């Protein structure tokens, strides 16, 4: 009789505690494709794609240094055309499935609501306003050329040495293959080792790595821990006193 009661109680407990995990959703392909977050000018040039965004002298007058306007915080005020230029260099396939359309949401004034993942694509290089000066890297009279602090000049498609002018230890790691991506073959004799430059992952105007939407979590959540959450060391110390 007691056994029957215990069994019934156990089964009831089991019935109450067991919950069926939610049905599995297929993983979007964006979580399995190895696309870089951005497409650098170097990559676009190599792929013979549209690099009109870097045709500075379609709008600017060549040989004339353009005056910059600053706001009260000492930040460069960007014209709308340059915000567009910055967005257009993101590699959409890194986060969006080309098969699925992106739903654009609007606010009350019918302006597009920019999702959080795109909001850090503004002029935000480092924490100081003085880092956000166009002519730190661009040559004032020839915007298609980049110049390091030591005066060496590089085309827009070769940015690593320009970035390394300030970020020395990072450049050293990049040259050793430690910083950044190295795809393809670890064994050079088996195939090509594909390396990406700085601007394939970092927006040079806002180099902090963009936020991303995480892939779906495991179907089975973390269970509540059975171990006590208090600090065992302090607990032990209290006991000694």
């Amino acid at each position, binding site marked *: 009789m007691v056994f029957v009661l215990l069994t019934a109680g156990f089964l009831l407990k089991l019935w109450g505690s067991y919950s069926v995990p939610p049905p599995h959703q297929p993983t979007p392909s964006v979580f*399995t494709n190895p696309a870089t977050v951005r497409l650098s000018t170097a990559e676009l040039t190599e792929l013979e794609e549209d690099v009109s965004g870097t045709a500075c002298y379609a709008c600017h007058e060549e040989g004339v240094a353009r005056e910059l306007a600053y706001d009260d915080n000492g930040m460069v005020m960007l014209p709308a055309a340059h915000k567009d230029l910055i967005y257009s260099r993101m590699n959409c396939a890194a986060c969006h499935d080309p098969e699925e359309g992106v739903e654009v949401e609007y606010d009350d004034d019918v302006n597009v609501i920019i999702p959080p993942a795109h909001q850090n694509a503004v002029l935000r290089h480092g924490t100081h306003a003085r880092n956000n000066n166009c002519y730190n890297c661009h040559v004032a009279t020839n915007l298609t050329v980049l110049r390091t602090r030591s005066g060496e000049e590089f085309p827009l498609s070769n940015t690593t040495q320009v970035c390394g002018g300030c970020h020395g230890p990072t450049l050293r790691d990049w040259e050793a293959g430690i910083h950044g991506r190295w795809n393809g073959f*670890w064994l050079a004799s088996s195939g090509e080792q594909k390396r990406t430059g700085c601007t394939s992952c970092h927006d040079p105007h806002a180099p902090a790595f963009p936020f991303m939407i*995480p892939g779906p979590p495991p179907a089975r959540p973390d269970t509540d821990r059975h171990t006590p959450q208090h600090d065992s060391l302090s607990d032990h110390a209290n006991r000694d006193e």
Partner: protein
Amino acid sequence: MPTATNNPSPRPSGTGPNGSDRLDRRSFLRKSAVAASGLAALAASLAPLRDLTDAMSMDEFLQKHYLEMTPEEMDKVLARITREVEQQYAVRPHVKDYKPMDGVEFVYALNLSRCIGCRKCVHACVAENNLSRDPEIQYIRVLEMPNGTFDMEKGRHDYNPAQVPREGHFYMPVQCHQCKNPPCVKVCPVEATWQESDGITVVDYDWCIGCRYCEAACPYWARRFNFAKPSVPKDNLNPNMSYLGNRPRPKGVMEKCHFCIQRTRAGRYPACLEVCPTGSRKFGNILDPESEVSYILKNKRVFVLKEEVGTLPRFFYYFDV
């Protein structure tokens, strides 16, 4: 005195031709009915074996241990696997038995300063290695840890914010550490798992008996058990397969991360590294002094997880910046 006389008349005997042991019609029918129902019950009780023969062919039943197979026997096994995969998934796979290279020992390094917890590695691994979608099996578990602690109890793997990384957290992917002193190999009662010369601990899925001792022995929870027949969508099957790696697993066996044996033994990087958007993951040959991992071990302050348990992992974590 009366003389004893033998009774000449034979006593009627119970064992005579007219006795009860003669099989009459009634008892024959009764006995044969009992025998027939007994046989039917036996057949019914053995019926599950009929299903079993679908799951395991005679070739598979008689198959030798991986390390004892001759190349010809391995060719037969690979042909069988190819046939079975084709039957089940309608995809013709390229199943190979990739052997370790000479002078190669694989090491993995992961930069915790760079990892943003996007879980791309988790899902790329699932796709590359034909992991079961339902029930779900994943080799990589990304822990979201609060800044300032390495108490693994405080890490959670089911985080799901709108965007990562979250303020005040760092992300720590955990997978098989391919230990040099692997406790999982020591506990296996049938030697179905062992360490190869390039450092990868592998499982012979056809030799594993599913006792799960290795799962209990692993301090990193890197081993997974197939509680049910793995389900992989036909159109998502990766046809590039290896015997010790990503070929479809049967029900009731253990599996684990094998550093994408079908890629890395062909000179490629593992899938989790290729897909990492931040370049946090580094992989290579530690015996090559020019490799990326050699540079990391020489120049970065690396550490291993649960050093005190003495497993000597080949998976190193480090912070830089």
